[in-house]
């Protein structure tokens, strides 16, 4: 599907639609003579028919995502797709857990941004292997981009792969990448009603991290209301309150990741055992 959301398919130009079919000439200018013998009419003699398709537009992405997911599971790789608005703290939350998590499990990171490799540089500075995908005009990562990135990143089996999606609370909700979970991050400097304003993302996620809780004393952000709104669109969503700056709640974020990794590694071991 789209790798570029606009740039490679080019020129989203705003010229008028190309007229389809024929146009009548202004007969004042010139005459064109019809051979009246063969009596042709200016209607298209089209025998139209209906072709049933019944296919989802995201089918190609979903098929690739399913392949990704099977590959991740077979390698016991726990994959988390981090989604949020720009500036909610996706990279900061990864950098914060880098040291503690690295001691327990291999980790690597795919960074998605429209431009720059700033985020992957932060990730590498924190000692984690990472790869940057620049989407150009694109507003989301898709399953094919992730497949290519995984190929060059070659994550270690039994580890954790974080995919930091393009900062955007709308489009990434629709694109399955093959991850085990989407994790949505909302920070306390945003409005607590974001789950209602951008419900698709909160509906698609299994965990909501409320970040920057260290700033709560200075803000109007109502945590309980935020959680209530999130559960309106997704009654099953789990919630953790964290601060990438002070480390508050980071322990439970780590535990959540390690528990997920255990589940995936466990099922991969039993799956391999079953086959072998």
């Amino acid at each position, binding site marked *: 599907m789209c790798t570029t959301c606009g740039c490679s398919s080019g020129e989203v130009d705003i010229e008028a639609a190309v007229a389809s079919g024929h146009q009548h000439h202004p007969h004042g200018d010139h005459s064109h003579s019809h051979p009246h013998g063969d009596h042709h009419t200016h209607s298209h003699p*089209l*025998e139209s028919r209906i072709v*049933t*398709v019944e*296919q989802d*537009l995201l089918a190609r992405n979903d098929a690739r995502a399913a392949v990704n997911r099977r590959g991740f599971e077979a390698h016991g790789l726990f994959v988390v797709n981090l989604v949020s608005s720009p500036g909610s703290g996706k990279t900061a939350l990864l950098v914060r857990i880098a040291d503690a998590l690295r001691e327990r499990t291999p980790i690597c990171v795919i960074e998605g941004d429209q431009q720059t490799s700033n985020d992957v540089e932060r990730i590498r500075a924190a000692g984690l292997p990472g790869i940057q995908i620049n989407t150009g005009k694109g507003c989301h990562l898709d399953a094919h981009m992730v497949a290519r990135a995984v190929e060059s990143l070659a994550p270690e089996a039994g580890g954790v792969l974080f995919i930091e999606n393009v900062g955007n609370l709308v489009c990434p909700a*629709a694109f399955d990448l093959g991850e085990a979970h989407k994790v949505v991050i909302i920070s306390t400097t945003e409005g607590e009603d974001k789950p209602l304003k951008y419900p698709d993302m909160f509906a698609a996620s299994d965990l909501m991290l409320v970040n920057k809780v260290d700033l709560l004393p200075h803000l109007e952000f109502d945590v309980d209301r935020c959680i209530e709104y999130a*559960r309106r*669109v997704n*009654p099953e969503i789990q919630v953790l309150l964290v601060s990438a700056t002070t480390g508050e709640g980071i322990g439970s974020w780590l535990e959540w990741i390690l528990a997920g990794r255990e589940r995936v590694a466990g099922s991969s071991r039993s799956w391999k055992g079953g086959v072998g």
Partner: protein
Amino acid sequence: MHELSLSNGMLEIIQKRAFEDGFDRVLAVRLEVGLLSCVERAALSFCFESVTRGTVAEGARLEILDVAGEAWCWDCEAVVPLARRGEACERCGGYRMKLRDGDNVRIKDLEVA
């Protein structure tokens, strides 16, 4: 603005079918769009027109058919209509619901020649 992605997806499906079913002109595309899908219809029409230029689907009519949202309410133990995500169940006023339909975008059929 993933409408361009969706339009490219639509074109891919159409071109594949044109090859398989042997048609060389698409007159109309009937597209089911869930009312709870995050698709902006005007943007989708614009993108569709743009990506189909010079293809088998150039100038095709894009007919958008609405598909209403539908959820399973755990408290009512019934399927209920859902106009928007985050809204309460119209029967019990609760929010313990799981969406069942109305968030997809799919090509239903093509009128071809």
